[in-house]
């Protein structure tokens, strides 16, 4: 870290205390108790985390945990400054893949191999999301993985005598039927653009080839401008008639509410949306499916989009390394994993944890058999511009009629090739 003190010394020497300001907020209590501060971008989970950490304190009475959530859209800003200075977290929730690299590169996180024994409780693939790109070391304990699929409202389906569709044509026919009945087929947001790449993977990964395309594009044998990928971008255009007319004015919570209040029959959403949607309407009866392959698809069976999402890591400047490691170790146990599954309603990656919610179980088993990555997040966030940003911007313009699928593909290729070398 670069010294910024020169001017301060000159101008305000009198008022300045000797500055050795590199302690985290976690503090020692009266009787040697330690309070760890844990940061997260999930304020909506605050209540549940309170219960979870109460469990931790039962077995670790000398460690208190102070859970501090920040708004998700501000979190990156806060964490990147928070880790460099006094008052930062001891343990922080971390983004996956490319999102965490700047923090690793700046030396602000502690590599956990050899320090957290429980890392063996994870499949190696589960740790890939939190590995340093340059040194290959693991910098966090994976919290959960996310999957993305289509939820449907069982009551609406029953009323309209529908089943989860087996073919693309069936899905379109169902959508038309719902529309005729005055129900929005798909609750889709065009305002929260980060969802658009996920919609694309959910409906059209089969069209471009899913994991096989991923391998090829990483090896330099395929490009985003290849006809298969361009055609996959166009799939959302074909579905546009069945999206809400006002989609560009609808945010994620708006479409969740549309769906949860029975105004829309289906919604493409993440595993992480299950709890919030149930909160809007506890009566909601849900089912999930993965869209059948569209015409011309490269892969003939539905694929399940999934990726490792959040992890918890250790601030290199924490004053309570030992206690923080104890907490991280606890986060690798099935006790914690089961809490994540049962109370946070997310997919824990700890081996042996079973989802009590049958829907989450269905998502996980679909991912085990037919996985496909959230391509832009997993592979194209290691440089700027981020692949996901380019695709989101482009898809929004495409759905507004301002760009063609081919132009969108061209922009993705141009942007990404500025830093991506196969």
């Amino acid at each position, binding site marked *: 870290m670069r010294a910024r003190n020169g001017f301060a010394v000159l101008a305000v020497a009198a008022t300045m205390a000797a*500055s050795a*300001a590199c302690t985290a907020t976690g503090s020692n209590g009266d009787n040697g108790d330690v309070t760890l501060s844990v940061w997260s971008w999930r*304020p*909506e989970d605050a209540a549940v985390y309170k219960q979870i950490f109460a469990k931790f304190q039962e077995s670790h009475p000398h460690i208190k945990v102070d859970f*501090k959530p920040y708004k998700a859209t501000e979190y990156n800003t*806060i964490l990147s400054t928070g880790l460099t200075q006094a008052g930062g977290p001891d343990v922080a929730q971390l983004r996956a893949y490319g999102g965490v690299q700047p923090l690793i590169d700046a030396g602000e996180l502690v590599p956990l191999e050899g320090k957290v024994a429980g890392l063996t409780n994870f499949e190696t693939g589960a740790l890939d999301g939190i590995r340093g790109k340059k040194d290959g070391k693991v910098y966090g304990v994976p919290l959960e993985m996310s999957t993305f699929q289509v939820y449907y409202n069982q009551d609406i389906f029953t009323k309209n005598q529908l089943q989860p569709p087996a073919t693309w044509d069936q899905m379109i026919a169902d959508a038309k039927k719902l529309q005729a009945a005055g129900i929005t087929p798909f609750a889709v947001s065009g305002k929260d653009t980060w969802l658009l790449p996920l919609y694309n993977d959910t409906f059209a990964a089969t069209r471009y080839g899913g994991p096989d395309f991923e391998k090829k594009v990483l090896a330099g044998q395929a490009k985003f401008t290849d006809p298969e990928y361009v055609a996959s971008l166009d799939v959302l255009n074909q579905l546009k008639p069945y999206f809400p007319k006002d989609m560009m004015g609808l945010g994620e919570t708006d479409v*969740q509410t549309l769906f949860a209040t029975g105004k829309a029959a289906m919604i493409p959403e993440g595993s992480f949306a299950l709890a919030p949607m149930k909160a809007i309407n506890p009566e909601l009866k849900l089912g999930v499916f993965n869209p059948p392959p569209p015409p011309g698809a490269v892969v003939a069976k539905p694929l399940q989009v999934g990726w490792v999402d959040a992890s918890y890591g250790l601030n290199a400047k924490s004053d309570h390394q030992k206690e923080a490691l104890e907490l991280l170790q606890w986060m690798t146990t099935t006790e914690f994993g089961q809490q994540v599954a049962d109370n946070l309603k997310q997919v824990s990656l700890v081996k042996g944890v079973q989802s009590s919610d049958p829907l989450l179980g269905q998502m996980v088993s679909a991912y085990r058999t037919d996985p496909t990555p959230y391509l832009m997040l997993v592979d194209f966030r290691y440089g700027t511009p981020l692949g996901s940003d380019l695709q989101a911007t482009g898809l929004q313009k495409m759905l507004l009629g301002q760009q063609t699928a081919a132009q969108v593909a061209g922009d993705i290729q141009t942007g990404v090739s500025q830093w991506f070398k196969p």
Partner: protein
Amino acid sequence: MRGWRVAGYLLLWSYAAVAVAPLIVMVIDSLRPNTEVLSRPLALPTTVDFSSYATAWTQASFSTYVRNSVLVTVGAVALDVAVSLPASYVLGRFRFRGSGVLIAYFLAGLMLPIRLGILPIFYLLGSMNLVDSRLGLVLVYAASGIPFSVFIMSAFFRGLPRELEEAARIDGAGEFRVFARVMAPLVKPAIATVVVFRFVPLWNDFFFPLVLLRTTDRYTLPVGLTQFFGEFQTNWSALFAGLVIATVPLVVLFLVATKQIVEGLTAGMGR
């Protein structure tokens, strides 16, 4: 002539309706259960229901946030005015070598997106042990207000007639007396303007406390509010209640002070 007046009043009152209608909707919807807000966006409450306020009040420590906002904002505005007033007096009424440069130096701050300095400010406060401190926030806020205060107050000082000051000086008053007893009272409307126009954005600022404060006990209202919005995204009724709670203190404060401000503004200008 009469028709012209009627049209004028009509315009003034219809715009008044436009100005307050969204706020009325905000209050009404905060009193309706969430399902009703979502199913019938434009309706009066069937029964008045304060439970959203209970939700908002118990889930977020709004009383702490209000106290912190008052401390920080009042402190910053007071410090800002205290240092800007004498400086504006010198800059507004006297020409000396470098006074032009100094004026430009102060006014330059008006034209900067202050957020742009956030990282250096963060490191500076860190070196002074003022991160996560309300005092640090007060200093940054007061400093960021100086350009606007100097801009407004020096313009007012410039506009005062020279005779007053000369009369006082002939009476043998010292520089400080001339300033404190004669000139400063004359720019009360300028001070009122500065207080209003600085108080409000500081009260509402969320970016600096978001980055510079860490402890929940020190949070100001807007930061508390953003967290509240994250937690209650789909409970519109509670969101509206939170917005009302965040708005009311300032509106009450302004209504109490507005008499003085507007009177000061107009009377001061008319003199």
